[in-house]
């Protein structure tokens, strides 16, 4: 604050802050509390007994471990495949001229013109004929499609932001094109591309609808297991502990992506 004039108290801001804290933070704190509770019977306002008993019990369940490894395997597979097919394409869109470049670039928006679950049902209709329902690779394909837009559009912007004069200067002093790519282009575009990869990993990890529609019951990811805990599990703490575990990738994304999300260009990417 540069002025010495005392500001009026920001009552609007305080009201928003209090209401949003109650509505957004409090529910999550309740879940966090349940995860570290041994006994909490109605109508006590606070748990009768805190403790880690249910962490041991939850982590001793075989279905929890198998779904954790299923979720991680899926997310890694989809992210690697997505990077392998999308990053060269992003480089081509950013740097090369070819027929139909614009229309192909915008074709990745096609999936966003339709309600998502309707589109998934239409895809499931195709998968039914190909016997991909209930298979690992069916889920991989459906989640891979979901990452295409982010994994192409964000890296394209990254490649376009690279300083072309530096590349040309390196070429002038005799660097090979490959050397220019590794030493000039990639280090500059790297952080943004890494953010896109992180985004697609986290997005895939939490993808629930495709996994449920295509994969269930054979492919059971962590969010799918969480749905069945909510619907059928009388022990509240199992769901609470699983929620805390499930939130870890999101927390990591939160740490890295806050700056990106708060910048105006992010909202413009959604048409704002």
């Amino acid at each position: 604050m540069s002025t010495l004039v005392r500001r009026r108290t920001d009552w609007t801001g305080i009201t928003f802050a209090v209401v949003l804290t109650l509505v957004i933070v409090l529910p999550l704190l309740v879940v966090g509390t349940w995860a570290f509770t041994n006994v909490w019977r109605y109508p006590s306002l606070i748990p009768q007994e805190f403790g880690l008993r249910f962490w041991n019990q939850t982590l001793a369940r075989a279905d929890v471990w198998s779904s954790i490894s299923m979720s991680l395997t899926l997310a890694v597979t989809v992210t690697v495949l997505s990077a392998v097919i999308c990053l060269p394409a992003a480089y081509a869109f950013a740097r090369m001229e070819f027929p139909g470049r614009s229309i192909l670039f915008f074709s990745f928006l096609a999936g966003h013109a339709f309600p998502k679950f309707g589109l998934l049902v239409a895809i499931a209709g195709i998968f039914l004929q190909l016997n991909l329902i209930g298979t690992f690779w069916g889920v991989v394909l459906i989640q891979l499609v979901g990452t295409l837009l982010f994994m192409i559009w964000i890296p394209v912007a990254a490649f376009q932001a690279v300083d072309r004069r530096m590349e040309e200067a390196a070429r002038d002093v005799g660097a090979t094109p490959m050397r220019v790519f590794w030493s000039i282009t990639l280090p500059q575009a790297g952080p943004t591309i890494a953010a896109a990869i992180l985004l697609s990993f986290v997005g895939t990890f939490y993808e629930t609808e495709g996994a449920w529609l295509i994969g269930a019951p054979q492919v059971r990811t962590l969010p799918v297991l969480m749905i069945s805990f909510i619907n059928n599990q009388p022990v509240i703490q199992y769901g609470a502990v699983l929620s805390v575990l499930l939130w870890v990738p999101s927390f990591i994304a939160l740490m890295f992506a806050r700056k990106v999300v708060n910048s105006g260009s992010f909202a413009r990417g959604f048409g704002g």
Partner: protein
Amino acid sequence: MTTDTAGSVSPVQPHRGRPIGLLLVAVPVLMVVWLIIWPIISAVITTLWVKTPEGDIFSIETYRFFFSDGYSLSNLGMTLWTTGVCAILLLVVCLPIALYLRFADSRIAAYVQGLAIFPMFVPSIILSFAFIRVLGPNGTVDLVLNAVGMPKIRSPYLTPWGPVIGLVWDNIPLTVLILLSGLGSVSNQAIEAARDVGAGKIAVLWHIILPRISNSILVAISFAVLGIFSAFTLPYVLGPAAPEMMGPFMQRTFRELFEPQTAITQAVVTFAFCIVFGLFYVYSVAKNRAP
């Protein structure tokens, strides 16, 4: 990637870049064609050309069934109601937040912005669980009410209001961000000029701000409608069993009743209801982005 590929970095060498550029984008483009464009076309075709012993004939029978079946119609009605209520609530909640954030620069404003964006980092399945623990039977709200000697609430869990609350919560971040991005184009000078000629706060909002952000409001609504109309997880976990929203309805028809044809018909109906919002949304995103 061959050295030849990297050699054609500059669009000033169009002839050398041509085939290799197309080759590099081929795989993701073919995936879009195979797994987005083809399923949509195929969904329309398979629901309109029905297989009969005499060959395929054109028939709108599956759609006639959908629009004459009471249960399908009440599910569609429920979906339209939820989408409409959510869109209105989102505007009522997010526009004041965005307006406040646009014109405030205190530390409290930074905190409010952080909170408004935070739901983006909470997966909807965790949100569902938190909702049940807070607003469900014997949840936190009941505990607090009981402690101060008041009766329990009528829980919105498993009623149509359950998905509404969850979906609004889930959509706050992007709605606020899109509106805020639109408000960025409202210049301070325009507002000060209006103030100077004696316009009150409401007049400034109505005549200066709203006309300038009307496009952003439409984009925010389109995005929300596309997401909410076929939402699955939140309505499935928080909503009533019947009537249900289109998302859970399609899932149940496909996986539990094993009637893919009927499920795909329902999907095409959701496409038809959202097509205007979808095209407008895609047009708005494309306008902001040149390749």
